[in-house]
């Protein structure tokens, strides 16, 4: 294909208002993990991040289910983006997401019954996880499938990383174990508070404090350089 043909093909693509500017695929992917991390930076999806994060295994299972739903729904929404009427797009997105959530819920019930039991209603509650609808509305509904998938993978992995950090910390401190294996030995007095609800808020709060301290330090350094 010549360059001219490429330009015409790109021009033929309808211009969607509010579409994200074009950039390399790896940037779409990387943004969700670091600069735009859904939990740490955008503060979306806080409910599952705190509710099920008292064991590392829960964090991993929840992360995997969310990645599956996010990637599949982003792909489908991106493929159907020219078919879905703008007026009913949110309802359509919710229906697509709910379908994939039902699939992952049933698969989890069949193959990982124990995990499904501990996560309980939080697997079907992935439907109302704002990360997924947010990505559909801000990104997947406006770009080509490859970019939508790269973005969904990045966001999903970013979410899982945040979830795993929180849950690993809570399980380690709260029970002295990691994935069920004892780390601190039998003499460790578990800090049970951390695996109970207030511990979730506290862990998250400490994390935001550390991040605030880090950005303040960066700012002070920059000011020092400028002076």
């Amino acid at each position, binding site marked *: 294909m010549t360059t001219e043909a490429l330009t015409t093909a790109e021009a033929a693509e309808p211009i969607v208002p509010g579409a994200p500017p074009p950039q390399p695929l790896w940037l779409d992917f990387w943004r969700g993990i670091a600069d735009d991390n859904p939990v740490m930076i955008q503060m979306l999806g806080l*409910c599952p991040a*705190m509710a099920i994060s008292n064991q590392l295994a829960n964090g991993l299972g929840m992360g995997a289910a969310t990645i599956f739903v996010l990637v599949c729904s982003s792909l489908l929404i991106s493929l159907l983006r020219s078919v879905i009427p703008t007026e009913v797009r949110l309802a359509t997105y919710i*229906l697509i997401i709910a379908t994939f959530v039902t699939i992952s819920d049933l698969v989890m019930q069949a193959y990982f019954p124990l995990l499904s039991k501990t996560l309980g209603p939080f697997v079907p509650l992935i439907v*109302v996880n704002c990360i997924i609808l947010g990505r559909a509305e801000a990104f997947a509904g406006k770009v080509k499938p490859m970019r939508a998938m790269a973005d969904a993978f990045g966001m999903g992995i970013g979410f899982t990383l945040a979830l795993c950090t929180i849950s690993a910390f809570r399980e380690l401190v709260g029970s002295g174990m990691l994935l069920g294996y004892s780390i601190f030995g039998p003499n460790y007095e578990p800090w049970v508070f951390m695996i109970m609800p207030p511990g979730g808020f506290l862990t998250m709060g400490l994390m935001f404090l550390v991040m605030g301290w880090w950005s303040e330090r960066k700012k002070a350094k920059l000011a020092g350089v400028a002076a």
Partner: protein
Amino acid sequence: MIANLSWIFFSTLLINNFTLAMFLGLCSFFGVTTKMDTGWRLGAANTFVLVMTAVAVWVLNTFVLAQAPYLRTIAFIVVIASLVQIVEMAIKKFLPVLFRELGIYLPLITTNCAILYLALTQTTRGYGLVEGIVYALGGGLGLTLALTLMASIRERLDVADVPAMAKKMGLVLIIASCMSMAFMGFAGMGSG
């Protein structure tokens, strides 16, 4: 019967508080609670939608979903979304003042996880119509309580001298942790 109902009500209101013990509806809990007025108004709107959902879910479970339990999540979310839409239209028509006060928070109730959680647990626990409504009332008032308390604390924080690193969310989350700890004290109520 009465004892059972009051147990459902108080355990949902205090012990298993939707926000502080079950981590539901945190987006609005952290996003909207900067002023006390909006705090309790959003709580009231949520309570209303919760009660309506409880009724709708009971109807669905009794007459429709018994044949197709795998459609639960999809059916619930569609019903909740349309319910919020109807409530929005009704309030706009009959209570225009309230409609203007609630603004964007009204449609956002659809994505509040507390609503879908209520629909799902009501099903798994097999609650009837009256039990469901009492459960929804307890949950909604619990939400309102948490929202109002948080908003009143944050109104005071506005004038307090907070270290720069805790300005954004850090301090709010730690306050939430303390509130959650206080609510854990209610857990002893059931055994007494």
